[in-house]
């Protein structure tokens, strides 16, 4: 599928030329693959099976014998009553809520910024850099910064609000529901430049002649967007949408650093709960089982999304 057509013929000729095409030459490609393959088996293939094994035992870090319990830890996640059931689904819903709120914002804002910067304008390079720049900060720097911005008493957001409207400060970080605002705003600030860059690349591929023709026919900028830009960007939009949604489901650092998952676990992400269960509560097997179940959900989600993408891309092009 990806081979160049002339390759087989060339290759046959080469093989004929070389009389040393013995066992050593035949082993050659495999020697190149070997170092990566070894590490791939140790750190990717093996851990998947090992995780399943851990999840089916009652893992005790202090003991050398681990007792087999079968699917108990997996079943716990589907039988109401255990704390694992309650917190797993609760934090999963938190994460889903974050995804539902943040993804449309991240896609729309990225497209908006890209459209603003599509045509040449004074300072374009500067603006691109400003919108992209927050993305190079680590999640902890970004988190500490936004916790300070939304500080209950003296954060910049409350200060600006008071200066403009005289309203008293809002306790963002300690109010259920409102605590999502700093997390979502911070995440948009942090990652929108990445998607903007993807959109800018896609926009540069739209032929200018289409806009010129449309302008000659008297199409308004709004009509041009609706009938030219938006349909031509559809594959890119779907790609950005899917990758952003998958990234949002991996929410961890933002809520950990900004709100520590609070108040009352209302912003705790599912990954934060899994790590808490495993590394703080020492419930290794339970955490392994949850990791597996959550991973499986992500896998189905990804497969469905990419199936959708393949269909849509085929439909538009």
């Amino acid at each position, binding site marked *: 599928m990806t081979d160049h057509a002339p390759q087989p013929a060339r290759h046959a000729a080469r093989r004929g030329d070389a009389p040393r095409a013995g066992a050593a030459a035949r082993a050659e490609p495999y020697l190149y*693959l070997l170092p990566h*393959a070894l590490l791939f088996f140790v750190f990717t293939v093996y851990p998947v099976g090992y995780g399943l094994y851990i999840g089916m035992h009652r893992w005790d870090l202090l003991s050398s014998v681990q007792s087999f319990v079968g699917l108990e830890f997996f079943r716990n996640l589907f039988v109401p009553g255990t704390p694992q059931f309650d917190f797993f689904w609760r934090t999963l819903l938190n994460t889903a809520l974050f995804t539902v709120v943040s993804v449309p914002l991240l896609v729309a804002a990225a497209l908006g910024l890209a459209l603003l910067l599509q045509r040449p*304008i004074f300072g374009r390079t500067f603006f691109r850099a400003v*919108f992209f720049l927050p993305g190079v900060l680590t999640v902890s*720097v970004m988190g500490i*910064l936004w916790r300070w911005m939304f500080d209950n008493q003296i954060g910049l957001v409350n200060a600006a609000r008071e200066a403009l409207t005289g309203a008293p400060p809002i306790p963002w970080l300690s109010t259920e529901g409102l605590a999502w605002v700093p997390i979502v705003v911070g995440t948009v600030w942090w990652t929108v430049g990445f998607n903007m860059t993807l959109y800018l690349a896609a926009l540069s591929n739209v032929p200018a002649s289409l806009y010129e023709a449309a302008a000659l026919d008297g199409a308004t900028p709004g009509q041009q967007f609706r009938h030219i830009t938006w349909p031509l960007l559809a594959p890119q939009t779907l790609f950005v949408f899917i990758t952003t949604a998958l990234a949002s489901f991996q929410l961890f650092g933002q809520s950990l650093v900004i709100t520590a998952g609070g108040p009352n676990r209302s912003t705790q992400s599912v990954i934060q709960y899994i790590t808490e269960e495993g590394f703080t509560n020492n419930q290794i097997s339970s955490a392994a089982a949850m990791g597996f179940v*959550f*991973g499986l959900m992500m896998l189905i989600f990804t497969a469905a999304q990419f199936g959708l993408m393949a269909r849509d891309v085929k439909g538009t092009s």
Partner: protein
Amino acid sequence: MSAPGTPVPGAQARPRPRPRRRFPREVPRFLLLCVLAALFLAPVYWMLSTSLKSEADAIVSPVQWWPLHPTLDNYREVLTSPDGNILRWTWNSLVVALTFTVLHVLLCALTAYPLARMRFPGRDTWFWFILSSLMIPGIVTLVPTYIMMLNFGWINSYHALIWPGVSGVFGVFLLRQFFQGIPRELEEAAKLDGASSLLIWWRIILPLSLPAVVTLAVFAFMGSWNNFLWPLYTVTDVDKMTLPVGITTFSQRYVTEYGKLMASTTLAAVPALIAYLIAQRFLEAGLSTTGLKE
């Protein structure tokens, strides 16, 4: 001479009315961009501004929009604090990210080479097998890999931060696609001169693939540098921490000392900003090429 010259006056005359019409239309777009840029820079301004204030000035109400009595005390205290060492964390991050990047790029390049340019049984099967691992979410291997680190005795060591991710697969895919586009004639000529395949890989394939190699290296470095979850649990020894984790423990200790907190986040942001300024072109170019692959 006159025939090719005639269209010129017409072509020159045409764009003339444009500047007059374009100017007013560009202004609102420019102003909007300025407002958005100001919003994006506000948190960074507030970080710098707070880091230069004394603790009393940082929390005074009404707020000080500008540091009235700027001081570098916060930076001095943060850099000499007994609770952690920002320079040490930066060094750890640098060693880990550089080692990881070199190993990762080398391994990916070695693997991508036969996958792109040799024919052998099982080639495509292996390629699709490792590629399919991209579908496995990281959370699945988190706990088992952690237990493996415990068994290897790698907790609190650079090994735990470097090895588990080195055999990543996206880089193999990226380099294989690029290697395939290199003309075969160059390789054939070197072969006639008696060059071994390893020499061809090192002297021809890698140099010609520099854009892809640099893109991969930038991504690998950024990924390792910004990694947070994994080092948070595999390194608990303060001296072995990387910058993102160290700075978080710092912030838990100084949770109400905003001046120090902002001085430490500023210091933690500096290496990333410098790296961005150096790698800016590669970063955005890399993003646009990898993102657009259909």
